[in-house]
């Protein structure tokens, strides 16, 4: 999968590396900004910190 991605990218190795780093940064941004907050609302609904029923 990742090997195929590497082959598809154009240019010499350092251009490919640059493209990969930019893609990685974009993916991380999407995860941190939208995906993780959304997942957080689904999985963590226990009342940690409070006493009660």
């Amino acid at each position, binding site marked *: 999968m990742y090997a195929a991605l590497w082959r598809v990218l154009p240019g010499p190795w350092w251009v490919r590396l640059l493209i990969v780093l930019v893609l990685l940064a974009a993916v991380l941004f999407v995860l941190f900004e939208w995906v993780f907050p959304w997942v957080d609302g689904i999985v963590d609904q226990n009342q940690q910190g*409070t006493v009660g029923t």
Partner: protein
Amino acid sequence: MAGELLLTAGVLVLLFIGWQNVFNSWVLNGQQNGAAAQLGRQWLDESASPSGGGSSSGGGSATQTSVGPAANIPVEKSAPANQQPIAVMYVPRFGTDWKRTVREGTGLDVLNSSTAGVGHYASTAMPGAVGNFAVAAHDTGYGSTFLHMQNLRLGDKIYVQTKDGFYTYAFRNYQYVQPNEVAVLDPVPREQSAQASDRILTMTTCNPPYHTVERLISYAVLESFSKTPPAAIASVVG
């Protein structure tokens, strides 16, 4: 191919845990601190201006050190609506600049909020009152508000600011209890039939850190009240 997918999934889970406990908590810590600073400053300005909402005509540094049951300490009478701000807490032991807004209610709408972090148990007393002013916060995640609660030492000051002024509590002791031990919220904690005469602050959080199997309870007792910021936090307020 399948191996790469599994590795990717594993990395995503680790990233999420990192985001939740480090990144998001760090962001919320800053936002909650900033919101508390703003509210504390606003209340201070209001009480300083002669036309402000203060009930008495600001008599300088009037400090009330008698805190017996009959002492004349201002206490808000009306119970606020859910999510309404009722106090700003300052705990130097948690960090010299540490402050949090206390809002009414202990739901996740308050505990996870970027403008709160500490929730007031709606059934309990208001700040400074005879009885038990009880609050809750997360220990890890969502601002990691009470992360350093185990660092409290006997006599450590906990400052609670309201519209009326500053209540100085002194830390007294811990208790480790089960999550369903609601008796810690009683006017005299865990003494259901006792008649309250002390002015107590109770803080609850999770124990151990990153887990939710127990609750760590901290008790503090009111030491004094003053209309102006106590010297120890004067540079932090406003």
